[in-house]
C-alpha cells in the first residue's frame, strides 16, 4: 500500500513516452491476400512474358494459359483492393490524379496500365487459331505490359516502407523482397501451368530456375529481416520469432528445394509450389501486423 501525500497521485514521469505515436492503418487480412495475389499475377505475367520472348518454341504454350491466369488473379487482387477501401464506391477517385510522390498513385496507374495489355494478351491467347493474324498484336501487348507489371510488383513494398509505421518504416528491403518473391511465385505458377499443358521441356527448365530463385530470394528476405529485427524483437515472443524463421527457412526454402530435387512428379512439384505460396503468405501476414502489434 502506498503511503504519504504522494500516494494521492500515480507517478507518471514518462507521460506519453511509452506509447506508439502513429495510428496503424486498417490494413489487415485482405491486404495480405492482396499482396500475395499481386505477386502471383505480376510474377506469372513477367515470367511467362520473359520466357516466351526468350524461347517462344518452348514456353509459348504455357505462356498462353499464363496470361489468362494472371488476368483472373489480377481481377481477384483488384477486387480485394477495392473492398479494402473505406468507401469502395469511390475507387475510381484513384484515377483523378497522377502523383509520382505517392506510391499508391504510382501503383494504381501501373496496375491500370498493366491490366490493359494483359487483357489483350489473354483475350488473343484464348481465341481460336483463325485469329492467328493477331499474334503480332499479342506480342506487342506483352512487351508493353512488361514495365507496368514490374511497376505493379515493385510499388507494394515501397508503399509500406515509405510510411511512418513501426517496422515498415525501417524496412528498406521490403520492396526488394516482395518483388523478388513475386518473380519466384510467378516461376512456381508457370511451372505448374507447364505441367498442366504438358510442356515438358518448359517444366524441366522452370524446375531448375525455381530452385535457384527460391535460394536467391533468401538474400532480400535476410536483409528485410535485419531491417525489421528491432521491431520483431519488441512485438514477437522468442517462440513466435522462431516460428517465423522456421516458416521462412524450412517451409519457404528448404522444403521446396528438397521437393524440387526429389523428383519431377506433378504432385511433388505442386507441393513445392504450395509451400512457396503458403510461406509467402505467412511472411506477408507477419509484415502487415507489425504496426498493429506495436500499437
Amino acid at each position, binding site marked *: 500500500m502506498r503511503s504519504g501525500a*504522494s500516494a494521492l497521485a500515480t507517478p507518471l514521469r514518462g507521460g506519453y513516452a511509452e506509447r506508439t505515436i502513429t495510428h496503424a492503418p486498417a490494413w489487415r487480412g485482405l491486404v495480405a491476400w492482396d499482396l500475395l495475389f499481386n505477386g502471383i499475377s505480376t510474377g506469372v505475367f*513477367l515470367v511467362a512474358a520473359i520466357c516466351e520472348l526468350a524461347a517462344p518454341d518452348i514456353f509459348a504454350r504455357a505462356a498462353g494459359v499464363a496470361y489468362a491466369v494472371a488476368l483472373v488473379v489480377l481481377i481477384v487482387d483488384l477486387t480485394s483492393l477495392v473492398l479494402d477501401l473505406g468507401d469502395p464506391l469511390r475507387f475510381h477517385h484513384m484515377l483523378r490524379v497522377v502523383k509520382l510522390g505517392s506510391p499508391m498513385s504510382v501503383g*494504381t496507374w501501373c496496375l491500370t496500365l498493366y491490366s490493359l495489355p494483359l487483357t489483350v494478351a489473354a483475350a488473343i491467347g484464348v481465341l481460336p487459331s483463325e485469329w492467328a493474324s493477331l499474334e503480332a498484336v499479342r506480342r506487342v501487348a506483352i512487351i508493353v505490359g512488361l514495365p507496368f507489371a514490374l511497376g505493379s510488383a515493385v510499388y507494394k513494398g515501397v508503399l509500406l516502407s515509405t*510510411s511512418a509505421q513501426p517496422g515498415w518504416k525501417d524496412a528498406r528491403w521490403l520492396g526488394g523482397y*516482395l518483388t523478388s518473391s513475386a518473380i519466384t511465385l510467378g516461376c512456381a505458377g508457370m511451372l505448374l501451368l507447364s505441367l498442366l499443358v504438358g510442356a515438358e521441356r518448359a517444366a524441366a527448365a522452370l524446375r531448375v530456375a525455381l530452385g535457384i530463385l527460391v535460394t536467391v530470394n533468401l538474400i532480400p528476405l535476410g536483409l528485410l529481416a535485419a531491417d525489421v529485427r528491432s521491431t520483431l524483437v519488441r512485438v514477437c515472443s522468442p517462440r513466435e520469432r522462431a516460428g517465423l524463421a522456421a516458416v521462412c527457412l524450412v517451409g519457404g526454402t528448404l522444403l521446396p528445394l528438397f521437393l524440387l530435387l526429389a523428383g519431377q512428379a506433378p504432385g511433388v512439384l505442386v507441393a513445392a509450389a504450395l509451400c512457396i505460396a503458403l510461406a509467402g503468405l505467412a511472411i506477408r501476414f507477419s509484415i502487415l501486423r507489425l504496426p498493429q502489434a506495436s500499437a
Partner: protein
Amino acid sequence: MASREIVVAELPQHGEPVVGALSDLVRRLVDPFRTVSPPEPRPATGFFTDTTVCIGCKACEVACKEWNLLPADGLHWTGNSYDNTDELSATSWRHVKFIEQIGEPTSDVPLAEATAAFSLERLLHEPKDGRWLMMSDVCKHCVAAPCQQACPTGAIIHTEFESVFIQPDICNGCSSCVSACPFGVVTRSSLDGHSHKCTLCYDRQRDGLVPACAKACPTQSIQFGPVDELRERARARVRELHRRGVAEAYLYGDVSTASYSELNSFYLLVDRPAIYGLPDDPVDPRIFMKGDYARAIGSGVAAIATLLAAIWLGGI
C-alpha cells in the same frame, strides 16, 4: 443564422438538379474529376500552442466538436489522469494531454496522517516536487505534409492559407495518409470510411474568423494568426521564459530539420517531445523513397536475370 438563410434563398437558382439512378451514377463518376481554379494564395496561418499556460480545461476540444459537428466519443476511463479522449481521432480533432510528473513518496507517513496534515498554507509554501504538464494537441499542418504527398486521390490539399485540408467529397478511405503521418493525426472514420482531421477551421478562416479552438481557449495557450508573426511571438515567449528561469523551454516544429519540414502548428514545450506524445525527431517517410524504389527494381531485375540465366544454363 436566419439572415444567412435569407441570403441563400436570394441567390440565383439554376433549377432543380436532375434526379434518378442514372444521373446519380453519372454524377458519382464525373463530379470527382471536375476541377476549379484554386483560390489566390493568402498569408500562411497556423497555431502556436504555448503548453506552459494550458490549464487542461478542454474548452478547445468542446469548441472543435461543436463547430465541426463531431460526434461524442463516449465517456470512458483511460486511467491516465484527466485524459478521457486518449488520442486524436476521426471524431476528436483536438486532444488535451495530461502528464502528471509527480515525485515518488519520500516518507512512510500513513495516508490518513498525511491528509490530515494538509493545509492551504502548507500547499502554497511547501517545495514542489513535481509538475503537471498539459498540452492541446492537433494536426501539425506540416509545410511538406507526408499525408498530402501520399494521398493518391488528390483529396488532401494545401489550402490558400497553406493549411492541410482533406476534401471530404474526394477521400475514398484508402488510408495512405493514416500510414504516412508520423504524428498519428489522420484517422479513418468507422462511420463514413473517410479520413478526417483538423481543417484549421478552413470554413471559418474563409469568413475571416478565428478557428473555434483558439477562440475558446481562455489562457491564450492556443494562438492563431499568420505563421511568421506567430513564430516571432513564440521566440519572444521562449526568451521571456528563459529570463524567468524556465531554462528548459523550447519550440518544437518552428524550424525545419534535416528530416522534416517546419510545422504551421508548432509548440512551446518544457520536456522531451516524446513525453508529450510527439516524435523526438520526426522523419518524412519520403526521404527513403528513391532508394526503396531502386532496391525493389534492382531486386526484380536481378531475379529476372537469375531466371534467364537458369533457363539458359538448363540448355535452352
